[in-house]
């Protein structure tokens, strides 16, 4: 198997995730797109780990999974607070810090 087939798959998934983050305005859907991007990175890590016969790829993929779990927990808490304060999770309306 070529290394590049995994890298291309990962690149396609990452770009779809970027599209989702840019286009979605529902907060939960944006979090899902971010998970898609993190997962694409994991495929890259594992593919390079197998390519170089190095176990570090798997170890760092595990760390990425842990960090993604932490990220989605805090992200959902923030989305819940936004919903509680504004009765909507439309991210286009969250512009309090806009200059």
């Amino acid at each position, binding site marked *: 198997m070529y290394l590049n087939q995994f890298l291309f798959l990962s690149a396609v998934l990452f770009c779809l995730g970027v599209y989702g983050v840019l*286009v979605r305005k529902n907060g939960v859907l944006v979090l899902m797109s971010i998970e898609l991007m993190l997962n694409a990175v994991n495929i890259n890590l594992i593919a390079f780990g197998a390519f170089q016969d190095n176990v570090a790829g798997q170890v760092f993929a595990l760390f990425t999974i842990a960090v993604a779990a932490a990220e989605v927990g805090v992200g959902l808490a923030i989305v819940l607070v936004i919903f509680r304060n504004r009765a909507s999770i439309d991210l286009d309306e969250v512009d309090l810090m806009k200059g």
Partner: protein
Amino acid sequence: MLAQNIIFGILAFVMIVAAFRLVTTKNVVRAALFLAIVLAGAAGQFILLAAEFVAVVQVLVYIGAIVVLLLFGVMLTRAPIGRDADVDNDQRLVGGLVALFLLGALAAVLADAWGDDKISFGTVQGVGEVSDSIFGPYVIAFEVVSILLLAALVGAVAIARRD
């Protein structure tokens, strides 16, 4: 090798279609289920790459915990359980162009850098090697991740708590 390539092709096709539907569907619950399909496909790719422990963790943590957490988020924010015309903003064209440009740039760089390098699977790195590595050279990073998870847990409770 041929069988592995066929399985890779099937999994990759399913993953890309599900990921595309994930970012285009109007139904929030359906998006979460498409995310589960993509994550299960990624677990299959990990098994193809002889990383079975990461595949199991992927199913446990991503599909078991994160997708369920996202579904809880959908329920708690009372997202309509049905088609919702109002989940995209008006940047679809620009967003699509940015994503396509990024994909083109990544593909060019990857094709240039890793042209026809093959994965040889010299020594399979099993669970034993992974755990030796986590609790050997990477033990400090492991402890930092533990503290990070604890901090995120406490932080999530502190943020979402009603005062």
